[in-house]
């Protein structure tokens, strides 16, 4: 399995944290990014960045996202 190592802040060999947020939103009756952002307490741009693997959220936000979708953290985020 590939492991991700960030050489600098901008350059990562492979994305380290992946997520299932787009799929979970779709399964939650097509929840909008704005609705998820409001529920979690971040901006819509942050949700977009998380979905595109451009931003790794803090533990607090990660737990809140899992809470919104009523699933465990591992079902939303994976380190691979």
């Amino acid at each position, binding site marked *: 399995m590939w492991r991700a190592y*960030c050489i600098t*802040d901008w350059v990562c060999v492979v994305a380290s*944290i992946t997520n299932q947020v787009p799929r979970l939103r779709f399964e939650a009756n097509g929840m909008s990014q704005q609705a998820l952002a409001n529920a979690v307490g*971040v901006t819509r*741009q*942050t949700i977009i960045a998380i979905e595109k693997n*451009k931003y790794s959220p803090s533990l607090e936000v990660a737990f809140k996202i899992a809470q919104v979708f009523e699933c465990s953290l591992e079902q939303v985020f994976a380190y691979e």
Partner: protein
Amino acid sequence: MVANKNLLRWVGASFVLVNLVMLVVWGWGTLFLLGLGFGGVVCAAGWWADEIDFTNEFPLLVSLIAVLTVFGRYFYFVFTNPDDLIGGLSRFVSAIIFMIVIEVVAHSLVAAQNAAADADERDKRIERAASRWGYIVLVAGVWVLIGQLVSRVVFEQAMLSSYLLANLLFLIFVIAELANIVARLLYYRLGLRRG
């Protein structure tokens, strides 16, 4: 709020065209240069990105172009006319006033769109990470300036005037601010996974 690529291309191209016409008809000026630069960057952003975040990236783009144009013009005058202290000072004051006006207009535009929102954890992390780059540039610049002064003493070269020294120090501050702005823009575009 986000501006999509078509809007960016139209707005950017319109800015470039209008300012190009003004430049040709009325001659060279900071305002036209500013408009040209801003239009060019917005147009380029439209080709590069699918959408631009109006809340965060737009004021940064405006600041980038404003700093480059306004202070670029000021430093060009200062280093080509090192003896014209009064002219330099008056241009310094006008550059500061111009920057304040541009920043106020840019932030008012964002506020008028109801796009202003509290900074969340990503914004704060990007701000911190970008500040580190600005700090590195600032410290490096100050050390280079100190080294330059020491070398002039050691090798008995003519010392810089206090006016030029102050402007060199100010130039380092401006470059550090530019590094900060560019880093923030790049973090918003390319993403931030650590820091």
